[in-house]
């Protein structure tokens, strides 16, 4: 195998790079403005309420955080599982993981009721809370992936690469387990309170993270006018197909379990049949766009060599994944909690027994999109400053 050279990524024309970066800057500025607007006025200006307490910002944040740990998979396959074809992609895998996590965390923190008290979250820990563990897991992820990148880039510490790679791999599994457990540990709501949430989030992260990785890798190599071989891309494509199938399997297992349990028939009926927008998001968004279309694009012989089919499948996985998290986070809250089994709520001073509506507002969306922009900005700057991308990835 010939020697691999890495070089800073320059776009074909400087104007393309700087205008792209400026656009991302504008998106981030709008998002920060939206966060200030929501913080200054209070959350009543958002679509969130005392019934739907987590809204669109949380969907974006969870989506990005889950994708972040998945984006690290390519590096893990290269250095932990010894996949030589993946090894040259390790640096970018680490950079993308850090970027996505930073974007997700920014959204999460700026949606807090008191973001100014972040220092409290960093200094006061309730170790029974999975949220507190996540604070440690998220900040630790930056440190571990940072060191991991160092061992990949700096030859003098390269001998530690495998050890650090192992640590990073286990850390990322713990991180997504922790994120899934946010829902898994909620005894109150029928849509949650299921141990399957943790492994399901892990497999979701594999899928979304790889989709993010593929689409940004293709884009980077087009913008940088560099060679990206079909063989390597086919490997990634096949892997994505397996992950999409695995997410579908977990979705099936989760819903079939609930369909068996009489107590959970209500929430299943809501998501699968008569939940309005949530039912549509599940069938059209999660299942059709997020599973069926990508599986078709990835496995159909007609698209065997089509780069555009791989890109389209990756985008479909991301759109479907976004809907999946939307259905989990918002759909799970919109369905009323069953406080009084066997009884119907005739009147309530606080919406008991009612399906709650949630209409996201523009500032919430602006903050969420800014999270993606932060991730892409970090990637764009990181790839230009550091030697992240191999000069060529031809077969």
């Amino acid at each position, binding site marked *: 195998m010939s020697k691999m050279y890495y070089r800073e990524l320059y776009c074909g024309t400087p104007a393309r790079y700087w205008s792209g970066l400026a656009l991302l800057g504008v998106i981030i500025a709008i998002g920060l403005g939206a966060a200030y607007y929501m*913080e200054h*006025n*209070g*959350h*009543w200006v958002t679509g969130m*309420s*005392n*019934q739907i*307490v*987590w809204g669109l910002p949380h969907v974006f944040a969870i989506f990005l955080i889950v994708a972040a740990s998945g984006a690290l998979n390519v590096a893990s396959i290269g250095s932990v599982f010894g996949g030589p074809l993946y090894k040259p992609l390790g640096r970018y895998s680490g950079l993308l993981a850090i970027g996505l996590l930073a974007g997700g965390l920014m959204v999460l923190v700026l949606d*807090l*009721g*008191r*973001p100014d*008290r*972040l220092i*409290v*979250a960093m200094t*006061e*820990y*309730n170790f*029974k*809370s*999975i*949220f*507190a563990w*996540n*604070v440690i897991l998220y900040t630790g992820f930056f440190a571990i992936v940072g060191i991991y990148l160092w061992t990949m880039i700096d030859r003098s510490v390269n001998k530690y690469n495998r050890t650090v790679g192992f640590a990073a791999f286990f850390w990322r599994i713990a991180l997504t387990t922790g994120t899934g457990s*946010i829902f898994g*540990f*909620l*005894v*109150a*709501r029928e849509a949650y309170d299921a141990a399957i949430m943790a492994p399901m989030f892990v497999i979701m992260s594999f899928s979304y993270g790889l989709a993010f990785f593929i689409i940004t890798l293709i884009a980077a190599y087009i913008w940088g006018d560099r060679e990206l071989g079909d063989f390597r891309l086919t490997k990634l494509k096949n892997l994505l197909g397996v992950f999409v199938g695995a997410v579908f399997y977990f979705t099936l297992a989760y819903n079939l379990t609930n369909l068996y349990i009489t107590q959970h028939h209500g929430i299943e009926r809501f998501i699968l049949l008569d939940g309005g927008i949530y039912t549509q998001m599940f069938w059209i968004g999660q299942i059709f766009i997020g599973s069926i279309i990508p599986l078709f694009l990835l496995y159909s012989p007609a698209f065997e060599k089509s780069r555009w089919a791989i890109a389209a499948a990756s985008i479909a996985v991301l759109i479907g994944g976004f809907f999946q998290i939307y259905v989990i986070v918002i759909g799970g*809250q919109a369905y009323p*909690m069953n*406080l*009084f089994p*066997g*009884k*119907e*709520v*005739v*009147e*309530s*001073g*606080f*919406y*008991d027994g009612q399906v*709650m509506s949630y209409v996201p507002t523009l500032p919430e969306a602006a903050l969420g999109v800014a999270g993606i922009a932060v991730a892409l900005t970090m990637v764009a700057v990181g790839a230009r400053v550091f030697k992240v991308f191999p000069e060529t990835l031809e077969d």
Partner: protein
Amino acid sequence: MSNKCDQPNMDRRKMIGGAIAATGAMTIAPGVILHAASVSDEASSGADAKHRWGMLIDSNKCADGCSACVDACNTEHGLKGHGRPATDAVWIRPVKLKDKQTGRENRLVMMCQHCEHPPCVDVCPTNASFKRVDGIVLVDRHRCIGCRYCMMACPYKARSFIHEALTEQSVNAPRGKGCVESCTLCVHRVDDGVMQTACQEACAEEGHAAILFGDLNDPNSEISKTLKSTNSVQIRADLELNTGVRYLNL
């Protein structure tokens, strides 16, 4: 030779020292006295593990159309609506139920159930949600970061997030935008030795007496005696949270 000695003038030193001590004492004393006063206050009326405060709500006595307890709670704690029911704070709410099989109707009030094992306390990342030794579940408004995980975790929908800036607050309940809050079991009254919550008082004044507040740990309290002699239930008893609020005739 009045002062030929090489020893320092101790008188002068004493005077300076005395002046410093006096100034210091004047500066510190009010604080010390206040601290002593607050310590003695805590000793006399703070949380005491001997007690477990709770409530019993008799569904048969909860009158249709009555909102006396809700109004009293709002007045006591300075809760004011902003004309936005989905985001306005609610500490206590009436709920009317109908049995799906028999058609029997019930009315009751729901609030924080002051669980022995509160899910809100379990999930709170910063220890802002906490349970006092006397069983009252509260939110420390200085620690709450407004993540709302407790609201996701509470099986009783008992908590409200403050969606806007507040004015004209009640001294009984300091509150703030961006934090979560819920029924305090009128902890300010309990700590002042007033063994009656605002909702209970209002309900009794209306002549319904559907709410009974008291010490669940004291076998001689009215609430304990009633609980012992009647068949009360906990809402969502399946979760085994051992709630401090119980219901009769549900």
